[in-house]
């Protein structure tokens, strides 16, 4: 029982997107609407909500499956209680990141965004191709994204994972 943290649901409710978590009355329409659940039974929105409300903090945040939400919002549209489960998942993932659980895919994306301001580098070669197709030149990013990342401290948060 040491694993149970009864305050976990309040922690989730304080994250952007997690505010409505306590409204869930467990009808399960989220699970019934979920396209990922249709493919893999290990991803189960209703179960994740129950785990959050019961305070199973570690088991939720450590679980690789919280990263399987495809962010399609089918559950959010149908939920009779307005729980906004897609947004709750973002809140959960944000909390997991703070605890040092970040999938490598995101670390790579953060690296690209910091360096190029976009997920893809648009270089001279691309711009020549664009010109040949009559498309305007894409200017090199001026580093706004990098500066925002420095200010919000996302780098420091990612670093914590590497120290783990």
């Amino acid at each position: 029982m040491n694993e149970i943290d009864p305050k976990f649901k309040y922690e989730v409710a304080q994250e952007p997107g997690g505010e409505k978590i306590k409204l869930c009355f467990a009808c399960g329409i989220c699970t019934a609407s979920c396209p990922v659940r249709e493919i893999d039974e290990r991803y189960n929105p209703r179960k994740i909500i129950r785990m959050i409300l019961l305070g199973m903090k570690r088991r939720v945040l450590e679980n690789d499956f919280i990263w399987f939400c495809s962010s399609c919002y089918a559950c959010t549209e149908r939920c009779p209680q307005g729980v906004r489960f897609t947004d709750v998942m973002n809140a959960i993932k944000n909390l997991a990141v703070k605890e040092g659980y970040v999938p490598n895919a995101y670390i790579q994306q953060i690296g690209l965004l910091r360096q190029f301001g976009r997920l893809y580098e648009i270089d001279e070669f691309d711009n020549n191709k664009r010109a040949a197709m009559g498309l305007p030149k894409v200017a090199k990013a001026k580093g706004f994204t990098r500066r925002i990342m420095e200010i919000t401290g996302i780098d420091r948060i990612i670093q914590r994972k590497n120290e783990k």
Partner: protein
Amino acid sequence: MKYALFPGCTVLGRGRNYEMSTRAVARVLGIEFVDLDDFECCGFPLKSVHYDTYYIMAARNILTAEEEGLDICTLCSACTGSLTEVNKHLNENFDEKAKLIAQFKKQGIEFRMGRGIRVKHLVKILYEEIGTKKIEGYIKKKLSNLTFAPHYGCHYLKPSDIYEPAEDPENPKSLDELIAVTGAKVVNYSEKLKCCGAGILAINEDTAYSLTRPKLKELSDNSVDAIVLMCPFCSVMYDDNQKKIEQKFQEQYNLPVLYYPQTLGLAMGLEPKVLGLQMNRVSTKALLEKIK
């Protein structure tokens, strides 16, 4: 009609055919696009990792357009979702917007406090601002020999409460009607509202492709000429990765994938090359033959 064009990362990196057809169709319709050098990523990839970073990235792009007095036209549905959500928040919370502008100022990034802008997906601009009646006037070559399956994707419709006006996500009509105006037949199909799976491609390819598969499978059986969509990441799944999915499941789909402006462009009589059709991965030759 003038917009700041926000192509987004995926269109710039992998969707030149979408960008070309968008610009070609816009020229015909008299939509003027302004390209702003200061646009960077919309922030969407970081929403699930670090909300504040996501929010500030989206807000900075919005303020950049506002500084030029322009509304934003998006092409990617994920960009549309992020920018619309944050824009709604900024427009409804002027105090927070002022605070954010003050914080940017401390960093040497200056924005004036404006009254707010609008963010709209290209297809919503076509449907709501121009309208099918007016578009009909530009159709030179009816695509009556073709049958298309509309794919709306997720973020173009959902979450519906961030959009103004919202479209019913369980029974959307905009893309159906915009396809119908080209003279093509539009099919309804059981997997119509399904997610393409792109959202988890980077996390788990197998699951992502399993999400993409049902639609390809159903439509290959129905013998439609193409699936028509308007999100570059959906196109990555259905077009760029179609071969991979065929191999993975040992199935044959052979289903061409068109961006909506490519479809409209064909009906306007524009050359396939101007619409970037040579860049679509699954060959569009057969359907082009039918409208020769």
